[in-house]
């Protein structure tokens, strides 16, 4: 037990502290005041939590002008500690030359660490604000490009946040 960094032993307690009852009353006062504090529970299905920009929801791929930004460098899949990402590269006539033919994140494995977002050189994969993920089978939990691609307008908040704080 330490108070202000100083060790207090049993012998150092004052008479009133040793009697114990005043201390109980102090504790009771604290809990009684706590009864009237603001509750932090959110009544979930009716009211929903709006996450701040720093929130790490499910990772999504940024879609700009109808194509994904991703150049299929594979860094995200390399860094992912949960081995959740699978990328298969292919060539494209676009300026970026490479694109992911297949991009899959296994949402059962993902631990929402945000490493993929951090490592990506193209800002192509970022953490969204979505936190409601429900699957009924393992197969369903593997998100392909169809589910991962999100138009850039929807993730502006996060991109701005990243620009400001990185």
């Amino acid at each position: 037990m330490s108070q202000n960094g100083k060790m207090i032993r049993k012998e150092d307690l004052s008479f009133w502290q040793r009697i114990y009852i005043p201390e109980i009353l102090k504790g009771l006062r604290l809990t009684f005041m706590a009864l009237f504090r603001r509750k932090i529970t959110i009544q979930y299905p009716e009211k929903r939590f709006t996450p701040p920009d720093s929130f790490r929801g499910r990772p999504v791929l940024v879609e700009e002008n109808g194509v994904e930004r991703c150049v299929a460098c594979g860094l995200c899949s390399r860094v992912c500690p949960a081995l959740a990402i699978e990328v298969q590269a292919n060539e494209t006539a676009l300026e970026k030359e490479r694109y992911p033919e297949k991009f899959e994140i296994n949402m059962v494995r993902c631990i929402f660490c945000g490493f993929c977002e951090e490592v990506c050189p193209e800002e192509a994969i970022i953490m969204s604000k979505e936190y409601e993920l429900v699957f009924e089978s393992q197969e369903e939990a593997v998100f392909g490009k169809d589910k991962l691609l999100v138009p850039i307008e929807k993730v502006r908040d996060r991109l701005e946040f990243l620009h400001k704080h990185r």
Partner: protein
Amino acid sequence: MFETAIIAGAKIVLTLITLLTLVVLTVYTERRVSAFVQDRVGPNRVGPKGLLQAVADVVKLLMKEDIVPKNANKPIHDLAPMISIGVAMSTFAVIPIGSTMTLFGRQIDMMIADVNIGILYILALTSMGVYGITLAGWSSNNKYSLLGGLRSSAQLISYELSMGVSIIGVLLISGSLELDEIVGKQAATLWGGIPAWNVFLQPVAFVTFVVAAFAETNRLPFDLPEAEPELVGGYHTEYSGLKFGLFMLSEYVNMIVASAIIVTLFLGGYAFPWGEQFGLSGNSLAVAEVLTFCVKTGLVMFFIIMIRWTLPRFRYDQLMRLGWKVMLPIALANLVVTASILALMNWA
């Protein structure tokens, strides 16, 4: 004779129903209060404001499978919860919740049994209650249950002494073992207008009694018999379904009974001191008395709940030390002082 039996029967049924309803309310209050203390909201989905949550719990318990461990002693395993609940419920029989009411031209005492040794009855029954717990612990054939049961009996022996001794102080002042009379004595007012409650006359005995009552009802900070982190669930680890429900029920009935006893012995019981000022008499006075009793008991119960969410659990050696080295000497000293003062007053 026949009529008395009918009246007693009606009172018993009424008390049982009231007690059960009260338990449901207490469980609800406990869960809500604990939630509020922890900045949560608590159960608020079942029924208006979540009031029916406890009912839903009961239904859930009823539908659960009743599991008896393979090597358990089945008859005793079955018997234990019955002892617990039976003892808990019958303690309430001697507690007066009002003086008398006149119904259908008959005077009716507002307690089930007007025993002239009410306090002894209560003491005897509360120490019976530990059999339920100890037998449950022993018959389950599980080390955690056994430890819980043993702890319970050790705890009870240690605290029953200080409880009994602190009651003697009250008895000396009231000069009667009858709960009705103890309450009657407290209806007077002392100099300065404060009611002659035993809290003011016997503050030390009050504290020791309340602490002992916590220990006897196995409530936190003395809930060692069921200490979840160390003993899984203590004596009811191996119980499920309705039998577990009975243990829960008896725990809460015990809490209600303990509050009622504290109110009766120390906080003036049902006495309504201003009956004449308000011009109450007969039945209206009786109603006022019952209300007074309910309000007081409710407040004590709230206090018990708040204590549970304020204090951490005692360690076993601390519990024993507190019981034998602190509570008992204090209670004894209080007894000696009270007796000497009374003797001096008589002599003067």
